[in-house]
């Protein structure tokens, strides 16, 4: 039984009505998302969908000038109402891993310095102890502890990303926000990193918000997947059902547009037009309607809300009507 995507007691992270504006435009137009302890949730979207901004909002890393509305509650308490000490504690519980590890690490400090920094500064752990923990965690991700004495540029992209994951886990967080962590990696390295993440999640009971543009990857790796378009979540679904029984035309179109490794098609089912960003989306119509194969006249005049449907959620006015007709197997 799929847990409902609604804030309620027991949710580790509950995002309600999150709106983020940057300058004159709205980047996130109302995001609702819940993650239970130990659960892996995928967040999938193309450019401009707002998936990265959502992660930043949760991690309290919004850029300057961004204003947010709505609530983000971690373990019941409002993340944006935390004081400095509460925030340090929060960062120990919610760790973040980014797409480009090199951009998030100081190139003139050794790997060991970087890994033990948070432990020593915030948790008051001694240097020796911190280094021992770091060595242990590196071992968990399959890296030798001699890396602690090396500089970031001496490591390959894959190794550095594994270091970042190890570093993120040192504070024993309960939630890991991973923003496209494997996009810049080779596909075999990606498989390795995903396997490590899966194992660590089991060992540490870690919840995961996995952000990616790759629908297949999210669906393969996460228990539930949320799909974003133009600053809103348009579908939340059990990953197993995402391909065979999607609830939103965009999800179906996205799956169909991807080339198939098992066969070549005369023509791919491309989606006409280009992805809309939150800035450009209309306030009182479905943002996807102009590109949608199932659009009805009503879709241009009414903003659809995210509604529950058969264990998942869909932001489509015709969701109930289209049930069962959107899947890959149907009409393929």
């Amino acid at each position: 039984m799929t847990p409902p995507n609604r804030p309620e007691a027991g949710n580790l992270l509950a995002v309600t009505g999150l709106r983020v504006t940057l300058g004159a435009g709205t980047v996130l137009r109302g995001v609702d998302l819940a993650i239970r302890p130990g659960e892996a949730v995928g967040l999938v979207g193309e450019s401009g969908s707002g998936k990265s901004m959502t992660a930043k909002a949760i991690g309290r890393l919004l850029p300057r000038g961004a204003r947010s509305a709505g609530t983000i509650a971690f373990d019941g308490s409002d993340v944006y109402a935390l004081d400095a000490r509460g925030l340090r504690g929060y960062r120990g519980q919610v760790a973040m891993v980014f797409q480009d590890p090199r951009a998030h690490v100081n190139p003139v400090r050794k790997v060991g310095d970087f890994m033990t920094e948070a432990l020593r500064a915030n948790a008051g752990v001694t240097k020796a102890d911190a280094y021992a923990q770091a060595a242990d965690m590196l071992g968990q991700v399959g890296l030798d502890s001699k890396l602690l004495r090396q500089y970031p540029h001496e490591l390959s992209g894959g190794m550095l990303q594994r270091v970042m994951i190890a570093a993120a886990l040192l504070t024993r967080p309960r939630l890991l926000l991973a923003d496209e962590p494997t996009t810049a990696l080779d596909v075999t390295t990606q498989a390795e990193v995903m396997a490590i993440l899966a194992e660590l999640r089991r060992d540490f009971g870690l919840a995961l918000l996995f952000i990616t543009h790759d629908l297949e990857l999210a669906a393969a790796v996460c228990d539930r997947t949320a799909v974003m378009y133009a600053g809103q979540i348009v579908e939340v679904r059990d990953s197993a059902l995402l391909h065979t029984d999607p609830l939103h035309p965009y999800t179906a179109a996205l799956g169909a547009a991807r080339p198939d490794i098992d066969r070549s098609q005369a023509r791919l089912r491309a989606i006409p037009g280009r992805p809309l960003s939150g800035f450009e989306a209309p306030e009182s119509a479905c943002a996807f309607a102009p590109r949608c194969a199932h659009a009805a006249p009503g879709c241009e005049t009414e903003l659809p809300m995210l509604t529950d449907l058969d264990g998942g959620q869909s932001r489509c006015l015709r969701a109930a009507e289209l049930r069962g007709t959107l899947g890959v197997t149907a009409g393929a």
Partner: protein
Amino acid sequence: MPDVLEVEKLRKEYGDLVAVDDVSFTVGEGQSLAVVGESGSGKTTIAKMIIGLERPTSGRISACGNDRSIPARAAGKRRLRGREVQIVFQDPYTSLDPRHSAEAAIDEVLRIHHGWTAERRKERVAQLAGLVGLDGRQRSVPPKSLSGGQRQRVAIARALAAEPKLLILDESVAALDVSIQAQVLNLLADIRDATGISYLLISHDLAVVRQLTEQVIVMRKGSVVERGPTAAVLDHPQHPYTQLLRESVPRPGWQPQRRISALPVGDRGAAPVPV
């Protein structure tokens, strides 16, 4: 009919590092060949050697029957070679001059290759822009007003303006959103149907390779480990590395396996671990 591209025993060394080792393949007229590999496989180096941006250490390259094993320096020679093989790069954001619109960029290429009147060039620019699906506005604005997919279309139109027999696509769709990638892949197929052009696709994405090409060579650390028809190689990979690549593609029910297990507790801090 000579093959559009012939590569024989190509080798590239950077000091001690062998980036490309004894690579040979051919691309026939109207054919599409994929070079698949991960980083460090040498696939981009091969593309650079074929297009003349890198000099092979040894080996032979010939396109349309003309030898091009050594990069040309003189403009005239480069021009002639430009009419045989062209390239579309991966990054749409740096492959166009930020100060030139699509029309200006395509027009410049036409001026380099032909002594046509302005009228005739204008016609051809419109034709090419239409072929890649750029509307009136998109043709005349500077690249920064265009999206990644639109810029790649400009890059394709510019490459086609030289009327090459072979187009090298160096991860040309890798940086595009999924929905846009599909559009551009369809476009490339249409262009191939309309002009009979050959493609050399450099890619790490096996699904794109399946969609666009009939032949594939798989590279690892500079050498070819497997080759054959795309469908056969992807459905029944023979070489362990190809099998590993195939296994690493996410799909429903995928269970990624760790190849490098966690070091046992006593050993953390001991022997080095293979990467």
